[in-house]
């Protein structure tokens, strides 16, 4: 007897368990990045919001220049500047409610500061002081994360846990174009979609991962197109248009909070400064590219809009600049004080209770320090 005979008549039906679970069309990003400034939508945006974004952008730019200056003075070990990307940094912070969580990557000091983290505490890691300067629970900002994309599953887990507990908390996770190549990016987005976790992924596509341009990072039509492969919507936005980034993020946050699941947002932007103060960007890109992008500056874009609508005059600009200068002066003053670190702290937080082994090592270091302070040993 043939298999066919065994199984009865041939049935020319499609595979029985097959059914597409959702129409992919609504998940796909638009062909062009979403923009608000310079379009008719701009007129409808709340004036206070625009003014707030403007003040934050000006402050953020000043923060970047001040922090970069501090590296030259040896007050910071290193600083990855987000100059040119302030619209993303600021909008990410502003789009969240107080109870929400922000998961910044190593470049997103500004987003942490815009969310309320003390400007000096946010730099603790980068000045060579203890790893995380701020209490993550105070402003619900996870530690600035250096291993790329590894913070994304954390954001998913936190959002999932909040939902399980019945809290309407949203997690916003930031990552770079380079970081999108890591396996953790994939796993995080997949878990988020399967769990319908209230999480929003913001990819800042600034064109480079250190020296590696986007074309060597991906061959996709856009990074936002990755969303469809997880079953979540992908959005593409002009990352230098603070109003557009804010709107797209706010929509995604609102949707997540309402139980609509995760969204992947790609913001097209550009890193104006080198990767960090230690990097030499002339090795991998030309000045003309940078100049072109300076012509699409996030502050200039918003300033133009505000001025046109009569929402910003010279006094308003001056006020924003003054506030930024005050912040910078405070930053300089406080960063010029040498931090005082207690070497004994090395042993305090490895475990809830130091192991017997760590207690021994702590005693050893204490003895060494005591001997040192008693005068030259040898």
């Amino acid at each position, binding site marked *: 007897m043939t298999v066919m005979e065994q199984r009865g008549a041939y049935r020319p039906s499609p595979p029985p368990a097959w059914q597409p679970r959702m129409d992919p069309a609504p998940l796909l990003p638009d062909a062009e990045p979403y923009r608000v400034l310079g379009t008719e939508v701009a007129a409808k945006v709340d004036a206070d919001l625009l003014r707030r974004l403007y003040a934050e952008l000006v402050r953020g730019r000043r923060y970047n220049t001040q922090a970069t200056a501090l590296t030259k003075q040896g007050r910071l070990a290193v600083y990855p500047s987000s100059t040119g990307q302030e619209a993303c940094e600021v909008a990410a912070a502003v789009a969240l409610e107080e109870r929400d969580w922000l998961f910044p990557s190593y470049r997103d000091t500004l987003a942490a500061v815009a969310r309320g983290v003390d400007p000096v505490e946010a730099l603790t890691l980068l000045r060579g002081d203890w790893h995380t300067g701020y209490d*993550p629970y105070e402003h619900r900002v996870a530690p600035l994360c250096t291993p790329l994309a*590894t913070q994304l599953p954390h954001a*998913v*887990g936190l959002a999932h846990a909040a939902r399980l507990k019945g809290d309407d908390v949203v997690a916003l996770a930031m990552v770079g174009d380079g970081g999108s190549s890591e396996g953790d990016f994939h796993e995080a987005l997949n878990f988020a979609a399967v769990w319908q976790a209230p999480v929003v992924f913001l990819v800042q596509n600034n064109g480079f991962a250190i020296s590696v341009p986007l074309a060597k990072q991906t061959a996709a039509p856009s990074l936002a197109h990755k969303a469809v492969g997880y079953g979540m919507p992908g959005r593409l936005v002009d990352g230098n248009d603070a109003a557009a980034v804010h709107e797209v993020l706010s929509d995604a946050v609102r949707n997540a909070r309402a139980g609509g699941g995760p969204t992947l947002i790609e913001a097209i932007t550009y890193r104006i400064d080198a990767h960090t103060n230690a990097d030499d960007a002339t090795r991998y890109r030309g000045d003309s590219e940078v100049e072109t992008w300076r012509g699409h500056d996030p502050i200039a874009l918003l300033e133009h809009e505000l001025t046109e609508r009569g929402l910003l005059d010279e006094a308003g600009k001056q006020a924003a600049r003054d506030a930024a200068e005050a912040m910078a002066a405070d930053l300089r003053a406080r960063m010029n004080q040498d931090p005082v670190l207690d070497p004994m702290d090395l042993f305090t937080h490895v*475990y809830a209770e130091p*192991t*017997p082994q760590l207690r021994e090592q702590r005693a050893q270091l204490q003895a060494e320090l005591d001997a040192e302070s008693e005068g030259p040993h040898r």
Partner: protein
Amino acid sequence: MTTVAVKPATMAQALTRAMRDAMADDPTVHVMGEDVGTLGGVFRVTDGLAKEFGEDRCTDTPLAEAGILGTAVGMAMYGLRPVVEMQFDAFAYPAFEQLISHVARMRNRTRGKMPLPITIRVPYGGGIGGVEHHSDSSEAYYMATPGLHVVTPATVADAYGLLRAAIASDDPVVFLEPKRLYWSKDSWNPDHPTDVEPIGRAVVRRSGRSATLITYGPSVPVCLEAAEAAREEGWDLEVVDLRSLVPFDDETVSASVRRTGRAVVVHESGGFGGPGGEIAARVTERCFHHLEAPVLRVAGFDLPYPPPMLERHHLPGVDRILDAVGRLQWEAES
């Protein structure tokens, strides 16, 4: 209720019971991993938990170990106590970046503000005829990662007590479950499970005067067997079950070796760069003038775990242990 009401109980049953009791006592305890829900795990160690506590408390995750551990980190940040299952030792490797860079370091990174009370259950070791990637002993990696506790039971009672302690710990614990002891039984009574067993204390499983066998996990029964066989040779061996590799119980181990003056460390893991080097070195540092002979090691060979048909040649057995004891330079005694 689950199937644990049998007496005597197996180690697998004691582990199930530990998770069940922890979940009943503490609503923040969540079990997650591949196949842990509906199926109850490929070793059935999570059997019944999804049924009793719902799929949100015992969750079948997508198939991605870094994602499992990474999302567990986020859950712990929000106040949950995830108990993560890695399906087999070798399938924990994709999660090593999350483990080393985050799980082990988050408390320290945040100066104590953000502890991560995660338990990572890893069935480990060989001797079950498993095909490649199913018999690794990966404890050396975990031991070399400060910020983790590393715990492994050898008895049914310890399986319960130590897993309860691991889940209750405010620190991440890598909980190594000796696969080949899953079906070992003893008279542990599941209706009156023992107390939580504090992490960090070794125990003398057999007292003896001639030499100390220092061991843990799957090698504990082998060492006890070797100690019995050694009586024929006139050796009275002490057997120390470490139970916790981190923290390490120097006190119990050193006290034993000072008493006996001789020691052999026994484990399945490869010898070179394995746990035995650390153990032998620290015992020697602490007990040098009590030692009649160098601390010797009986370990797996320095190989990728061999195919099932050859594993008996690889695993430390009674004969190899007794040979090592024999090499403890007994002539020095005379």
